[in-house]
């Protein structure tokens, strides 16, 4: 399967009369985009604002981030999620690199979500200062969407509409670049495993087990995750890595440090591709679920390990997780099954200390064979965000705005785009 990304580097994003791309400058007709998004009757209104790197601007209630992309040939955009099914992972896709669609959850229908875990300000992106320095999204030109629910729309339906609005905006914007000469081209080409090219047979085969959804949180019926399916109990299955890069998998409503942007630019898949044919042979990807019970996790661990060993013929496998507690246990269990089958493992995870700040490292498993662990940082270290001049991402609620513009003392995990459970970060927790 061969996927070509035709990349246009974005220098600036502005509002204008016409939505188009000229010389790296993306202009957006705000009204046109708003009308397009309001075709979804679940939404009454969509605020759209821009946030640029270096601005003293803070974005609140961030729930997801999407890179503007649109298929040029060989498939449909976000198949299933937007209704139409279709091929993906082949042909070419236009990418606007340097621009990101940011999704913010406004107060929604009725009262705000009553989950005690939701920090008052939700996910935060700062466009300058220490938060911006560490975050992927502090350095990009952001198109910030704050969709509001139409009267009588349930919270679940609103949240689906929110994600759909993000995906539609990503396509709408990237279509401006479809006929332009790309600034860069990336090719992701991996043949079927039965057709290993000559000379590559001796390379160690490495696979990836991608835990993409956690059952620890209630799923939203109809939420589009895997080719439009909510997928919460799907058995471990093979996906071609290109399918993931090209939009087959969408983040569930609640994730921990994984955004759609991260899936489109999946760093482990890209790294395996980068070294493919050099010091390893990329033998494939298995997607799996972290279930909320031990029986299903045992079943999934065994099935995933069997796929990796007996279908992908892997010598080694990388594993990651997508949440906190049981996802970590499920990942470790899967790694253990792989090791038992003779497949060497290494895992990458954000890990917690024994006391929130200043504690020693701890893990939720202790398996002698699961001994190759990369640290993706520790989430609850304090960070102070300096005052800003502009707040985005909240539906007009003047009360409290002064506080939100002021200095915020929070923890690293609330700043979006800093920590990544799929290893797209240089943050690492060092044990002193």
């Amino acid at each position, binding site marked *: 399967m061969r996927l070509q990304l035709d990349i246009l580097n974005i220098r600036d994003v502005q509002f204008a009369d016409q939505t188009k791309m000229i010389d790296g400058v993306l202009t957006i007709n705000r009204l046109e985009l708003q009308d397009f998004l309001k075709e979804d009757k679940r939404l009454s209104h969509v605020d759209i604002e821009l946030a640029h790197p270096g601005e003293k601007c803070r974005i609140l209630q961030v729930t997801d981030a999407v890179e503007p992309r649109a298929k040029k040939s060989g498939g449909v955009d976000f198949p299933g999620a937007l209704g139409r099914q279709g091929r993906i992972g082949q042909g070419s896709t236009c990418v606007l690199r340097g621009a990101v669609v940011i999704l913010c959850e406004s107060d929604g229908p009725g009262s705000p979500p009553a989950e005690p875990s939701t920090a008052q300000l939700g996910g935060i992106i700062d466009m300058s200062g220490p938060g911006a320095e560490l975050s992927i999204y502090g350095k990009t030109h952001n198109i910030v969407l704050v969709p509001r629910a139409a009267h009588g729309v349930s919270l679940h339906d609103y949240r689906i509409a929110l994600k759909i609005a993000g995906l539609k905006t990503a396509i709408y914007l990237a279509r401006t670049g479809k006929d332009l000469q790309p600034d860069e081209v990336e090719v992701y080409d991996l043949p079927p495993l039965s057709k290993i090219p000559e000379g590559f047979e001796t390379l160690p085969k490495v696979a990836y087990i991608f835990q993409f959804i956690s059952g620890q949180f209630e799923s939203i019926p109809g939420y589009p995750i895997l080719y439009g399916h909510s997928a919460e109990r799907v058995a471990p299955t093979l996906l071609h890595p290109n399918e993931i890069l090209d939009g087959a998998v969408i983040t569930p409503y609640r994730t921990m440090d994984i955004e759609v942007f991260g899936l489109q630019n999946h760093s482990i898949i890209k790294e395996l591709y980068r070294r493919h044919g050099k010091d390893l042979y990329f033998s494939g990807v298995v997607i799996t679920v972290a279930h909320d019970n031990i029986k299903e996790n045992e079943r999934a661990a065994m099935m995933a390990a069997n796929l990796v060993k007996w279908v992908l013929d892997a010598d080694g496998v990388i594993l990651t997780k997508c949440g*906190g*507690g049981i996802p970590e246990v499920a990942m470790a269990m899967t790694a253990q099954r792989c090791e038992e089958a003779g497949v060497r493992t290494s895992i990458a995870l954000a890990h917690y200390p024994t006391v929130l700040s200043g504690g020693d490292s701890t893990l939720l498993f202790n398996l002698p064979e699961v001994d190759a662990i990369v640290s993706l940082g520790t989430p609850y270290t304090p960070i102070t965000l300096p005052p800003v001049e502009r707040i985005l991402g909240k539906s007009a609620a003047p009360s409290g705005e002064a506080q939100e513009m002021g200095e915020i003392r929070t923890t690293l995990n609330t700043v979006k785009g800093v920590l990544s459970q799929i290893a797209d970060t240089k*943050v*690492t927790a060092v*044990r002193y």
Partner: protein
Amino acid sequence: MPSDAKEEDGKMGSRKLRIVHYLNQFFGGIGGEDKAHVGPEIKNGPVGPGIAVQQALGERGIVVATVICGDNYFSEKIEDATREVIRLIQSHQPDAVIAGPAFDAGRYGIACGALCKGVQNQLGIPAVAGMFKENPGVDLYRKDVYIIETGDSARKMAEAVSRMVDLVCRLAANEKIGKPFEEGYFPRGYLENEVSDRLGAERVVSMVLAKIRGESFESEVPPPKFDQVNPAPGIRDLRSATIALVTDGGLVPKGNPDRIEARAATRFGSYSLKGIKALNPDDYEVNHVGYTPVYILQDPHRLVPVDVMRDLEEEGRIGKLHDRFFATAGAVCVVENVKKMGQAMAKELKDDGVSGVILTST
């Protein structure tokens, strides 16, 4: 390097560091086990391994005195001995203290750790010890004190001493201390986020390749250490037993009266079941960030099965259900807090005459 009129001076124009060295009776040349009871004495200048310390120090410092103390004397009354030794050390007005290396000698290691901790706290000067990884002094004192990792015996004395001396000099100069594996000390036990030069993805792929090839690799996260908990003996007669329900699923009365944190809890509550046949969903809420509590909110018995326990009570299969249930939130919990809560809960339950506990989680 300027080599002019600074004969007496150490680094950066400051005078040479005055170091006091601590040894046990064996390395201090007094004797073996038969002299382990001997109390502390102080001698001028270096003794035994102190020669190696002085060599490693070179122009940076001078071993002004050596304290020697028997291992039994020290380990049998650690606090008193620490005080005594510190008094001896103090008279030489040192800038830093080096203790050991103790290698795999357990009592010696404990003495070195206790002394270094005392020196830091009471004299406000740096102190460094050296031990083999299995020395019990490591686990007891690594949180408080820099302990250089050494081999298990004096064969590698020179290398161990040189690392100890380098570290103590840097501490005395107030320099930033590097990572444990760079400096050779046992991790003190706290996590700090840093920015690596490579993405996590690059590092994790490199690690699996090293593992496939059978090459050595350095895991970035150490395996956890779990306490060993011996199970209590079984209940002989359930029919006379008082059984309590304890949950970490976050079920609390509406309004969360004890203000238990939904994440990283430090508090727990206990809530009356007196005269309650069954929990009324209207009276409770769930305070927990780790799961979606829809099913518990519908019927709290799914988490705290008071209904079933009342049945068992009526059937006479248990003596009675304890008249309070205990709850906290087991999400993103930190070990030290949970340990404290567990101990406090266990004490209350025991004081109340509870003979068995059913723990429910989510």
